């Protein structure tokens, strides 16, 4: 298949940036989206142009490194990561717009690469538990109800790719933050820091310049891991509880 791509090109953080059109010919429909970009980059390199910078690592859909906005949708038309999106999801002759995640808290570094270290700082502000060192405790000493374990695991599958922020019309990082709060808040190990976690993470989230949640639901719809929307309501419940106890 032959396609046309319009890619956001931006030399560095200070450059204004613009959309540039390229043609890519003989694309196999079995190629992943990133492989198509690899082919395009080889073309650009051969013709002496600067290849398009984009983030990627495992290409198996589990690391969270890749992610671009394709035709206005974070990770494109399928509910998966960009690396697991295949060209068969597009039609022959399609014009595909590729842009970086857009958010005040995710400044563009180059082309399609954005700086997502704001997420790391949110995790540092409370996304952890204090565990004693030494040998592992007897697992059966700490029973966890199956339902809680399942919900916690579902939230723990968040790979921190940032699609929720890119899809959210408000540039809010609430689904990411809520996933970690739900994951740890449902497990017994997460209880000691439950109140300080939600307050610390929300304060950091706001400090980084992420927007406020207005419950649109685009985050959940774009999430390659399908983190459910009720995590946000659970975050709010934890926050109200912590505030009621005067923990702020």
């Amino acid at each position, binding site marked *: 298949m032959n396609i046309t791509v*319009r890619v*956001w090109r931006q030399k560095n953080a200070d450059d204004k*940036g613009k*959309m540039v059109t390229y043609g890519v010919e003989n694309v196999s429909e079995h190629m992943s989206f990133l492989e198509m970009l690899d082919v395009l980059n080889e073309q650009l390199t051969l013709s002496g142009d600067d290849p398009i910078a984009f983030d990627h690592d495992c290409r198996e859909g589990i690391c969270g490194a890749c992610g671009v*906005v394709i*035709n*206005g*949708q974070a990770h494109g038309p399928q509910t998966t990561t960009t690396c697991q999106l295949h060209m068969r999801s597009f039609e022959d002759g399609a014009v595909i*717009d590729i*842009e970086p995640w*857009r*958010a*005040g*808290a*995710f400044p563009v570094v180059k082309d399609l690469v954005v700086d997502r270290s704001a997420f790391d700082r949110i995790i540092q502000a409370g996304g952890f538990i204090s565990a004693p060192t030494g040998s592992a405790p007897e697992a059966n000493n700490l029973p966890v109800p199956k339902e809680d374990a399942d919900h916690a695991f579902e939230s723990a599958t968040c790979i921190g790719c940032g699609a929720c922020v890119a*899809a*959210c*019309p*408000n*540039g*809010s990082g609430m689904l990411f933050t809520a996933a970690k709060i739900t994951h740890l808040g449902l497990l017994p190990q997460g209880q000691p820091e439950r109140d300080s976690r939600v307050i610390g993470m929300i304060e950091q989230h706001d400090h980084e*310049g*992420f*927007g*406020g*949640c*207005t*419950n*649109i*639901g*685009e985050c*959940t*719809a*774009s999430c390659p891991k399908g983190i*459910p*929307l*009720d995590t*946000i*309501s*659970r975050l*709010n*419940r*934890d*926050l*109200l509880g912590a505030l009621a106890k005067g923990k702020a």
Partner: protein
Amino acid sequence: MAVSGLIMLGYLLVHAYGNLKFFQGPEKFDSYLEGLDDILYPYLPHEGALWILRVVLVGALVVHVYAAITLWRRNKVAAGYVGNTRYQTKQNKTGYQRSYASFTMRWGGIILLLFIIGHVAQMLPNWLSPGGASDSKYERVVNGFELWWVVLLYTIGLVAVGFHLAHGFWSALTTLGQNHSSTRRSSRITAVSIGLAVLIAGGFLTVPFAIFFFGAGS
């Protein structure tokens, strides 16, 4: 946003129910409205309850609008706009599943604010009376809603109320930590919100539609 919104929603429910007294005829309707002045009398002074209600509602409205403007400004920066648009592409402007109600909260809210200001101005005794002033409030209602443009303006305002509530009630409960559904669509509260929106918008519209289309009260 959530708490102030729910306060106003509570008022709307009572207000919509009260409006249906119109169908009991001029005497019952006018005496009902006069009776409102003496809620909890003599424990509260004449119009005491109404003034408490007015202060609470205006307070809720001010908080609601202030919060909306703060959120709007903050989110505009957070969304990382490039010039006037966020994404350059012209495809999928409404994302994956955004409902019409959810992305018209802001502009719909402005329509609502203008509607509320106009509506309250009409409630001042014989100050703004399209269709003709009268000492009977029942007659003023009938006079006003016999004009097509008054009915049209109220219809626009009330449809805006409906859309605002369809997303707003759902959103408020989610903000208060009461939503247990995995997606926007699967939520049981979604059905309740839409039901509530139809009930309130529809309930209010019965009176102007009955007057304009079926000649009620004339």
